[in-house]
């Protein structure tokens, strides 16, 4: 009559002496797979400002702003509003240059609401990039000028004819 009741007691008592499955979290951690969607990471130098991730995002989490310096796009703002993120990975999938990626960091809680929004691009990064572009452009211009001068020197007649 009470067979099931006694069997149930047996199961719980059996479990009482068996090893436990708890993982003592902050000290012990389970390994995370490579595909895990944790905190997003942005690689500033890889980004080509193609806007693919912005368009792929279902929840309009990413805000991308660019500035054109010497015909080149410079990312001046890449804000990731994490509180609205669905962690679906569509941005990562859309990015052609792997500039946005999800890391394995899952401890995303913050004490203050504004801290949740990640502003990836720092002003100094923009400055550096701009300087780099300008420098590259200047170098290129200088090289071109030098080349032109060289050509001119080698072939002064042609230059004159052209003008």
């Amino acid at each position, binding site marked *: 009559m009470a067979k099931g*009741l006694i069997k*149930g*007691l047996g*199961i*719980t*008592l059996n*479990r*009482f002496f*068996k090893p*436990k*499955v*708890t993982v*003592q979290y902050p000290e012990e951690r389970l390994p995370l797979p490579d595909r895990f969607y944790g905190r997003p990471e942005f690689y500033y130098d890889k980004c080509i400002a193609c806007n693919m991730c912005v368009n792929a995002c279902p929840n309009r989490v990413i805000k991308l702003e660019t500035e054109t310096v010497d015909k080149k796009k410079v990312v001046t703002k890449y804000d990731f509003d994490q509180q609205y993120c669905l962690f679906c990975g569509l941005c990562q999938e859309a990015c052609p240059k792997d500039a946005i990626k999800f890391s394995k960091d899952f401890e995303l809680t913050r004490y203050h609401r504004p801290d949740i929004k990640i502003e990836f691009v720092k002003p100094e990064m923009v400055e550096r990039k701009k300087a780099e572009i300008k420098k590259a452009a200047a170098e290129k211009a200088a090289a071109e000028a030098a080349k032109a001068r060289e050509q001119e020197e080698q072939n002064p007649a042609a230059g004159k004819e052209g003008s």
Partner: protein
Amino acid sequence: MENLFVNMASGMRSLLASAGLPDTATDFILMFLKLGAILVYILISALWLVYMERKVSAYMQCRIGPNRVGPLGLLQTTADIGKLISKEIIIPRCADKKLFLLGPILIFMPPLAVFAVAPFGKDMVAIDMNIGVYYFLAVASLSTVIVWMSGWASNNKYSLIGGMRVVAQMVSYEMPLILSIVGVIILTGTLNMSEIIRAQENVWFIFLQPLGFLIYLIAGVAETNRAPFDLVEGESEIICGPFTEYSGMGFAMFFLAEYANVVLVSVMATTLFLGGWHAPFGLTFIPSWIWFLLKVYVMIFLFMWFRWTYPRVRVDQLMEFGWKVLVPLSIANIFVTGIGKYLYQTIRW
């Protein structure tokens, strides 16, 4: 060791007597000391039992349970109580304020009062009453009124349903509880707890009254409102029953009182069926009071084991089981016991 507490008491008595106090005053002071000791014991054991319950449940569920506050998490309950004390006591609008606040104050009274007659060891009983069992049954059932009162005073429908369930459950399970004890009383012919324990020197009544013990066990679980008879709280149905609206210390009092009741029922089971302070297999080198507590904790473990294995019965099934199964069985038990005793006596004499 054996007479640790007894010697302490007699030492105290002689100390007070040497101070020139009259006998009545000494008795008076000593009585208070004994009751104070019981109070401390109940509170500490309630705290410890909350911890034990959490550990037992965790171990049965492949978990570890509290292990952060203090060594092995031993201070977890203390921390919880500290938190509950510091919380605001919220009184619902339109609640009967006086009764609402009276509930948690009174809830500890019945178990406290009953423990006065509990024999914790050889000669270790605060008040050796000759109607101890009767006193236990009478006072212990008082808590019903208090729980019902708090349920009614809360002005919450869940609380009210819970309160009504308490009454219904107590009325139907007090009956088999008492009737199951009657078997023991027939065997011993006394209501005095110490006498009952002394009568079990050779054989524990669990062997003479197995059915009585089983009925007592089931009814005892129902008395303490624990699974599978935890309809009063019935978390998945009526939130927390009569305690739904209680917060902070009020809730903590009910919570601890539940464990005090568990200890109480276990103490009674030990006294009536498990041979009280008698040591089994002649292991008398262990003091009697340790044996007693050991048996009490085995009983408590049994209660916890039930709770973490069984689902809850339904209210009509509870009533049916109480009235249609337990009451007839316990009456049959009394009948058989009576005949058995008569036969025993006629054959012997």
